């Protein structure tokens, strides 16, 4: 029971860190993680008393695996990865900018439309006194006609 929970914890740790930090495709990550998973299980079957430290010493910690992966990459491969990341960033940035411009355009059109409607509506307030009628015409000039 102890071994199973330790195994789960270790696998969870590998899965979490390698998924986030390995600079490769999802398929490659999945293949690497499942190879580690299967082989840790085998290792624990053969060494049932192995401690967590022994497992990390034998397989390497997730950080060590990531460092080894990065240092085994050729310069051209690294450049390609960075270029790809830069392209993705540019596409996302352009997308966000386009959405912002579209929203701004829609808001401007809606505002202009509302402003065009507003002056056409007249609000007339009338008050009758003993001798005269006071009328307030709420147009754009706000003239008072008596």
């Amino acid at each position, binding site marked *: 029971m102890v071994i199973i929970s330790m195994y789960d914890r270790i696998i969870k740790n*590998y899965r979490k860190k390698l998924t986030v930090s*390995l600079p*490769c495709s999802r398929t*490659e990550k999945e*293949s*690497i993680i499942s*190879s*580690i998973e*299967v*082989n840790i*299980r*085998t*290792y624990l*079957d053969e060494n049932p008393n192995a401690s967590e430290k022994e497992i990390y*010493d*034998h*397989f*390497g910690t*997730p950080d*060590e*695996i990531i460092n*080894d*992966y990065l*240092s*085994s990459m050729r310069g051209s491969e690294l450049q390609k990865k960075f270029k790809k990341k830069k392209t993705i960033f540019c596409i996302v940035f352009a997308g966000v900018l386009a959405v912002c411009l579209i929203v701004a355009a829609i808001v401007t059109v809606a505002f202009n439309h509302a402003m065009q409607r507003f002056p056409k509506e007249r609000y007339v307030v009338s008050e009758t006194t003993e001798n005269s009628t006071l009328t307030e015409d709420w147009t754009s000039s706000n003239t008072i006609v008596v």
Partner: protein
Amino acid sequence: MSVQENIKRGTVEMLLLALLTEEDMYGYQLCQELAERSNAKFTLQEGSMYPILYRLTEKGLVSTRKELVGKRRTRVYYHIEPEGYSYMQSLKEDYFSIHDGITKILGTVGDTEYGNH
């Protein structure tokens, strides 16, 4: 990073392929063979080996097959393909060529005592 580490990283692909020319092996076995044959001078953590094996497999230099061991355990055996063998030979030639160059340089400067110039 030390010279040893750099050499290790540059040669691990070649050494794994070289071991596979003898027989098909699984991950743990490859690690053990590397350590034993180098008198523990060349050790590789098993987790760091799988990305390399994955790349070799993707390139078609190595193929894999699964074998059931016992009731529930599965072992993945790695097998070197003819393309892998040719690639290993070219890596080996490159290695011996550069090793030869380095040895020649070190052989000539090694004779001079520090300060005798």
